[in-house]
């Protein structure tokens, strides 16, 4: 999060000079993020063939996808380099809403799954 007084002297939309690597990230950094995303995807495909109960599998896959989306949002979508205020107005409320959806639906679907005749 860059919240230095330096960047506050003029709003971003008035900035015309080139932004340095510190603010936009370097090619090497982006290539690393890309490599990690590919690695996590490969891990997901590998795990899909393991014989695990479906509700455990969905939790593992969702967890890995959450890591991937955090990487994409922080680096590709630049959120890590924005002010903290922007992150706070966008992400916590969104995560809260998604958690509310999961609280409503997730446990009940597992209950229904357990009710199946084995």
């Amino acid at each position, binding site marked *: 999060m*860059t*919240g230095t*007084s330096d*960047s*506050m*002297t*003029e*709003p*971003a*939309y008035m900035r015309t000079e*080139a*932004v340095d690597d510190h603010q*936009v990230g370097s*090619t090497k950094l*982006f*290539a690393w993020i*890309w490599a990690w*995303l*590919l690695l996590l*995807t490969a891990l*997901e*495909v590998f*795990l*899909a*063939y393991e*014989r695990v109960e*479906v509700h455990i*599998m*969905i939790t593992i*896959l*969702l967890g*890995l*996808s959450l890591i991937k*989306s955090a990487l*994409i*949002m922080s*680096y*590709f*979508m*630049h959120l890590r380099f*924005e*002010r903290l*205020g*922007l992150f706070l*107005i*966008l992400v916590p*409320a*969104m995560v809260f*809403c*998604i958690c509310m*959806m*999961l609280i409503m*639906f*997730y446990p*009940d*679907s*597992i209950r*229904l*799954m357990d009710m*199946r005749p084995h």
Partner: protein
Amino acid sequence: MSDTEFEGIVATPWSGGASPFGINSKKLGMWLFIVSDTLTFSALLVSYAYVRLATPDWPRPFEIWPAIAKSSLMTFVLLSSSLTMVLAVAAAHRHNVKKSVRYLILTMICGAAFVLIHATEWVTLFHEGVTPWSNPWGVPLFGGTFFGLTGLHMLHVTIGVVYLGIICAGYNKGKWTADHVEVSGLYWHFVDLVWMFIFPLVYLLSVNPK
């Protein structure tokens, strides 16, 4: 406007002022759209996950070839397009228009490739008798959720390719600025991000274990 006056307006992010988030309004607008679209996709994915877990005998028809190989390739293509997009934005911020346009075109090629591979995947399923209303394996919701989720995502990718094309042409002509490229990049990465959830939930949870 003098510097001291201006610093007074944007003193801290919490005191409001002209630019509390230090970004332009286009970018804030795109972020707000992304939040609302995230909730749309979340609702669809959560309801899909619900029926997926709660339905006994959910079909698991996806073989390594073609479905899993193709969808993995699509993931690779989309992730790579995100890399070229981020490089296009970085080049645009360094005022390297030529390089930025080249990366934007690469991104569009990857996006178009994604849609094409996805279309062949759909055609294969149509031939197997899968429609949004029925399929040969029983649970009719399988087709509905599959085409609903992947269809809405494919629509986003298609719109994204067109959007990038418009931005790319305008930026090349000098009509638009690096900020426009960055905002279109946000949309493109979001489309990539959504696929990171659709791919494991729709494809990998229905792999044929044999």
